[in-house]
């Protein structure tokens, strides 16, 4: 099983650049031109949506998580990596705070 994981990761790296680029909303605008029965109305609708969406998307702040902190949470509390990262993120990178909140204190 382990080898297919590596396999994906290998290719994931290779693809990452273009992937990231394509994932964003900018590229999708072109997509909207795609045919549909009620073209015009939908284009207008989606234009509105875009406006709705922009604000929350920009807000994301970045917090750097230390790898060894994540590992400590995993080792001490036996939780998944995903959960450990999420808790650490909520605690703004403060290991002690994250451990505390995970133990319900």
């Amino acid at each position: 099983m382990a080898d297919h994981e590596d396999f994906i990761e290998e290719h994931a790296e290779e693809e990452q650049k273009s992937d990231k680029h394509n994932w964003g909303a900018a590229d999708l605008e072109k997509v909207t031109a795609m045919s549909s029965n009620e073209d015009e109305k939908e284009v207008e609708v989606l234009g509105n949506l875009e406006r709705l969406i922009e604000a929350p998307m920009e807000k994301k702040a970045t917090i750097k998580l230390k790898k060894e902190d994540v590992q400590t949470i995993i080792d001490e509390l036996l939780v998944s990596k995903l959960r450990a990262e999420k808790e650490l993120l909520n605690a703004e990178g403060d290991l002690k705070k994250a451990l505390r909140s995970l133990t319900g204190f």
Partner: protein
Amino acid sequence: MSRPPTSSNQPLPAKELGTFRRIVKCYENKQFKIGLKLCKQVLDRKEFAEHGETLAMKGLILNCLGKEAEALETVKLGLKRDVGSYVCWHVYGLVLRQGKQYDEALKAYKMALARDKENQQILRDLCLLQIQVRDYEGYKDSRYRLLKLRPQIASWYGYATAFHLLKDYPMALSIIDEYMRCYPGFAKAESKQGKSDAFARSELILYQNMIMREAGQYSKALELLEENAALVIDRRVYHETRGSLLLSLGQNEAAANVYQMLLKRNPENLDYYKQLEVCMGLTDDDIDAKLKFYDDLAIKFPRSSIPRREPLYFADAKELRFRLLVWIVNMLRKGVPSLFKSLIPLYKDHAKVQVLESVLKEFIGEIDKRGYKRACFTRCKGKHESPSTALWLYYLLAQHYDRVGNQTLAMEYINRTLDHTPTLNDMYMVKAKIEKHRGNLLEAARLMEEAQLLDTADRYVNSKCAKYLLRAGLIKEAEMMCGKFTRDGTNASINLNEMQCMWYALEVARAERSVSHYGDALKSCHQIEQHFVNITDDQFDFHTYCLRKSTLCSYINLLRLEDRLRNNEWYYQAAKCAAKIYLRMLDRPGDIFDISECGEEMSAEEIKKMKRKQAKVKARAAEKEQQKTKGVAGQVEKQTKKEEGIEPVGINIDPEELLKTKTPLDEALKFIAPVIDLGCTHVTGYLLGFEIYYRKEKPLRMLQCLKAAQKIDQAHPLLHIANVKFLLYLRNFNRDGVVGELVKELTEELFGDERNPVDFNKRYQHEIAKDFGSKMAVLECNILLEPGSVPAAKKTILECIKDATTPGRSLKILIKMRDAIRYGRFGEWSRDEVAEFMRVCHLAYPYANAFGGGAKEKENIEASKGQSTENGDADH
């Protein structure tokens, strides 16, 4: 996948391309055999032998045919041959998803999408998986892309739910607004569209309302709800929502009107009464006002039982007496078997129990004085009760005395019912229950069988009977009993597992455990676990279905239910049972692997006696069963052969394999971790967690369990033991860094200054340990702190058992003590010492099978009735 493989690096010529398309068609139409043949056609040609997409399709089809391993290999091979193809990546993702490797599947889907950005099918599969693993952020992004590609109703709904689940209420609401704005016909009643649209509209309005309520926008929610009143099809939900909104907004009078109206629709909904109480501003202290409130409603709804029953639970003793008289007399005259059930809440309060008992005594006095043909509870001249009233009164008294722990009197009354009417199965069921409560499980099972024979068409009695058989350790017989109601032709256990029947699996697990068949017990626990896995997997169907059918409120509620699924009581019980067995594997490996030696510390004579009794009940059941099965035997054989092809999950778990695990702690943790994470309400759940983390040396997790347990019951005996264990553990704890620091901090928060385990134990002993359970906990801690205290502990244990006035001494707890002693938690006990323990317990509970009493001894005990009846009467 219906589009041609554009991203492939291995283009096929026209003819093969045609074949490939046919393969895809075959897969979609589930013509797997033909599909495989077509794959072979392409792959057999030398130049296409390594055609990636064909290999992928072959793998996908193999996967559908249940050949998972081969499928994965083939798909991987195909992917290696053609890494640039979205088909290969998509198929790889699908196969991984089937194998429940969700993280990997997500990656594969994303790779596929990178190669074909507008492929809606892949996007939809990605969405499904993201919501299934609750990756809300990712789900939101994918939903956005899907909406842009395909702005149809389900896409809009999906996008709105994404924001709702992220708790971004304003966005979720604007999306719904936007949708209603774009399709104005949808929001208006005069739209010409058909019935289904009307329903979708109604659901959307309610969904919008749900988001607003969660966002705290009550007044806007109310306004919109009333504005759209005519469009909401589900009238009950409309009124209930409106009532709760009015109440949230403090418009109590208007809310009261709504609930009054709802009560007219359904006067048996307790929730309406409770809400109405809130509307009227009635508090729990205001008993007179509450009584009047319910009395008024009782006049208004003469046929409803709630306004007559509820006052019983809060009225004070004096008021209660009069109301109980009316309530009980009415129910007795009608002959309502569930009368006792309605009285159960009274048993929380000792004063109320006294009132109830005096009322019952008055009735029985009247009957005893005048004979049941002439007695009249209401003292009306010239009137008398019908003969059946007396029967139901005896029945009620039996249940009452059983409840307060006086099984001797309970037996007396239940026997009077049987003298009165020997053909009513309710009576036998209660008699069985009384026997069960005094520990005579074999006799209880026998009585239940009698009850079952009186009405063989009643599945409730049948199930009860199976349960009692399991309690008596008669596992095979219980299976046969259940077989009377399961589908013909299959084994009852298999059928019940398919039906996800959890009570049965749990009782089997406990029964197997009590006879030291730990593998079989674990198997049952794993079966229950498997049901929960299946329930989680079943969600997949709803992600698409609910969006398509617009049932969004229910959908969101379903997702929330699934998030807390393992908070369910059955899961907890199964987890508890399994975790205990896994802990035993570590603590007492001899019990698990060498069955001949373990467990039975009963004398040979006792074993023989026990077996004889079991054999008797067995023989009776087998005899009955034989006549039945003869007829269907032939049929059964045919059926089982036919069904061999389909193998239900869970039934194939191998008990032996389960016992061979090298990591029992991890297995135990798999069961217990969700219980702890979801905040279960049982102290024991956390303490089992503590035991596991203690052995894994994870101090932070131990502290978490202790804290959570403390919140529920600070004085719990098991918590005390865990606390002492933890303080002992700290003696040798010296870790630096953040973790070490935090452990010290949290310990201080939890224990204050008292961190010496010896003092801690002493304080508990003096301040809290008054009842049997906590006294035993102190002894166990004494032994942990000073192994030399075993002889003293033994002495105290026996004294506590002998003393009938020890509060909290019960049959249940003595059986737990027996198991704890066998487990070695109270040091080493010699054979004679165990025999003495059993003898003392037997004297306290002469009917309990667990201590060698029971059916056979009945006559002896009856003979020496003078002394022994006093035993059960501690309360009187």
